[in-house]
């Protein structure tokens, strides 16, 4: 395998490698965070004492890594790169060399972020949201180069994903195989290109904002510093104008994975293909007018709160439709519980909780109390953990045979699923109650507050569950590497699925298809009355009708 390859499949694997590497670093930060919260100011086993400023660095880097360096490269870049050309019947991306540039810019971003841990003063510690003035002046945190490098790493990553987004869109619009109309595209392709559009439309303001923040830090400007006439709230608006669409940039591809897997293991067409597409687009558009729900108490005019509260709560309608469509898909299906399906159902059932708790946060008056508490932390882990890890594992286990030509082990996969499901809930369900008790995010030591001391047993429980959640990932790591070398060799279409990637070899050669497939039908024709088998690939030519044969 060439390292400097232009093959979209190699690039996808490179993104996957980087994403999984960062997931390990991100997991380590969560262990240290949880240790400090449960057993404040004691030595974390295997690490040591966690000072308050180091703790702030941990929460900052945990968020940054998990959102930008795990969720984005795995959900968007890995699956988008791997699947879009294969699923639309193309030989590669529209701009293969731009694609190669994008992964190497991302590698550079990773390197810069990694370096930021080792500069004097340590890595960024102003929160993953980097609110100025805290982030705008080194004297407030004691972090100088760490935060500059953090900004540079983010800027590089945005450049990388902009190039990726251009490729996703251009490829999907221009390189579809004959017969692959827009309404025959697999839903994950719809989700990926919607995510690409959201990202491209929202990231501009943030890049501008990041440049201004960097200038405030290194060039003495005062865009965000009131002593020079600047405005701290400007950053919050720029950040969240990007930040909320960004949530869907991560989430939609995760949802897409679930939507691909469900019909295959239900042997039934996805319910409401078109309503799902319209809902996705509606949710994407709404996501541009909800950003100030992060700022109800920021000091912005309180009259702005209700309009943003209303749009935020309305976003439940398109997502509810997608959830209902998924549930309806299971109705009168024939469901088999392979590992990918378990993770897909896990994603759905966990996302439902995350979606429902979003209503509490979106309601401005309730937010007065729960804003900035662990309730919010629990909420967004239910949405983002479900998308990143449950959907991510669903996608990896489902497309592993296509990516690497071998099957993963089902027993290890199921052990991994149950450990992840049980301990995920053991961590994040009690976290809601800790939040309702009033516990603030990002405090290193809850025991410093009398009103939080009764919550401490729950915090200890959460930490123990979090350690077990991390340990529960070992079966996946073992399974991944064992299957990579020793797994059963996969045939072309081990799941008897309909979409085009399964018509290519496992793994597909450079160029993907022996000949460009021709598409005759929509992607989810399972148990179609037209054929005896319970699947009907998109590229199988229509047979002469039974009447004609008789």
């Amino acid at each position, binding site marked *: 395998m060439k390292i400097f390859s232009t093959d979209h499949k190699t690039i996808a694997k490179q993104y996957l490698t980087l994403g999984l590497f960062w997931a390990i670093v991100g997991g380590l930060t969560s262990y240290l965070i949880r240790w400090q919260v449960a057993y404040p100011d004691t030595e974390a086993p295997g690490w040591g004492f966690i000072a308050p400023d180091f*703790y*702030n660095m941990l*929460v900052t880097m945990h968020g940054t890594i998990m959102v930008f360096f795990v969720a984005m490269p795995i959900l968007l870049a890995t699956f988008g790169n791997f699947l879009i050309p294969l699923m639309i019947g193309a030989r590669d991306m529209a701009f293969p060399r731009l694609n190669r540039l994008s992964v190497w810019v991302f590698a550079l971003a990773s390197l810069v972020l990694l370096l930021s841990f080792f500069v004097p003063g340590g890595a960024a510690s102003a*929160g993953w949201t980097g*609110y100025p*003035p805290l982030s705008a002046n080194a004297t407030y*945190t004691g972090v100088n180069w760490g935060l500059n490098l953090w900004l540079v790493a983010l800027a590089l990553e945005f450049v990388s994903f902009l190039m990726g987004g251009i490729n996703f869109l251009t490829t999907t619009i221009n390189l579809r195989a004959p017969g692959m109309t827009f309404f025959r595209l697999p839903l994950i392709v719809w989700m990926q290109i919607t995510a690409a559009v959201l990202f491209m439309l929202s990231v501009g303001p943030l890049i501008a904002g990041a440049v201004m923040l960097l200038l405030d830090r290194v060039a003495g400007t005062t865009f965000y510093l*009131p*002593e020079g006439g*600047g405005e*701290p709230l400007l950053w919050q608006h720029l950040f969240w104008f990007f930040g909320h669409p960004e949530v869907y940039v991560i989430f939609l591809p995760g949802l897409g994975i679930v939507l691909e897997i469900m019909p295959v293991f*239900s*042997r039934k*067409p996805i*319910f*409401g*293909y*078109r309503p799902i597409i319209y809902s996705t687009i509606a949710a994407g558009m709404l996501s541009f007018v909800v950003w100030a729900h992060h700022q109800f*108490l*920021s*000091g912005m005019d*309180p009259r702005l*709160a*209700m309009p943003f509260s209303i749009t935020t*709560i309305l976003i439940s*309608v398109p997502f*509810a*439709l997608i959830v209902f469509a998924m*549930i309806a898909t*299971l*109705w*009168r*299906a*024939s*469901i*088999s519980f392979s590992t990918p399906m378990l993770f897909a*159902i896990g994603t*759905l*059932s966990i996302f439902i909780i995350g979606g429902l*708790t979003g*209503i*509490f946060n979106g*309601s*401005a*008056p*309730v937010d*007065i*109390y729960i804003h*900035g508490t662990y309730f919010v932390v629990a909420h967004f882990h239910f949405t983002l953990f479900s998308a990143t890890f449950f959907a991510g594992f669903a996608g990896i286990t489902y497309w592993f045979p296509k990516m690497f030509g071998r099957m993963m082990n089902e027993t290890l996969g199921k052990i991994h699923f149950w450990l992840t499901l049980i301990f995920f809930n053991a961590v994040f369900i009690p976290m809601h109650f800790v939040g*309702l008790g*009033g516990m*603030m*995010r990002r*405090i*290193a*030591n809850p025991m*410093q507050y009398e*009103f939080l001391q009764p919550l401490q047993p729950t915090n200890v429980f959460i930490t123990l569950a979090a350690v077990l959640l991390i340990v529960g990932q070992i079966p996946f790591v073992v399974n991944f590497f064992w299957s990579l070398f020793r797994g059963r060799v996969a045939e072309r279409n081990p799941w008897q699925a309909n979409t085009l990637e399964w018509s290519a070899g496992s793994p597909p050669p450079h160029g993907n298809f022996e000949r460009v497939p021709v598409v005759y039908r929509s992607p989810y024709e*399972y*148990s179609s009355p037209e054929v005896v088998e319970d699947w009907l690939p998109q590229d199988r030519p229509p047979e002469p009708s039974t009447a004609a044969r008789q």
Partner: protein
Amino acid sequence: MLNWFPENVSSFGGDIDSLFYLILYITGAWFLLTEGLILFFLVRYRRREGRRVTYYHGNNLKQAAWILIPGLIVLLLDLWVDFRGAEVWAKIKGHMPASDLRIQVTGKQFNWEIVYPGPDGKLGTADDLQMDNELHIPAGKVVRVVLKSKDVIHSFFLPNLRFKQDAVPGREIEAWFQATKPGRFEMPCSELCGFGHSGMGGQLFVHTPEEYEKWVREHWPEK
């Protein structure tokens, strides 16, 4: 119903809590319905030999009604939460009740500087009194706070009063609350503000009117 919240001693805390429970009941019902259906379908329609799947795509309006009608119910419930929320928001943040007690709270790394106006009731005069991390207020009276910050963004959080408001450098943000019951409570900072963020806080003393009079006389004896 389990009570997770700290004791409520705020005049508007009941509105926030009841809105929370309204949302809890609505979302709780959806939670049971959706997760219950998923579990039921997983068991009822698990793979069995010889079962033929119902081919059903949900793309025409008649079939899609199975999701559109529940979607409409979601919309109506959303509007209920929105309208109730707008009422509560208007009551808390939409107006500023009159009060002769205006206290200035300034966040700085890592203290709350509380400035009391003194007998003249005006901030910025000679009889002002500053105390760090101690807020004394009378029960049953509207208190207005003027929130400022000297360095970074802090957030003034009074859990028992269901009150929270960011303090932003360069701005003076005015807000109000009214305690209903005397007692001693805490007032942490809930926005990451630096290495001392954890531990930043103070004590909120809600006095009975008589005790409050006594406290005032102790600090401004010339009155």
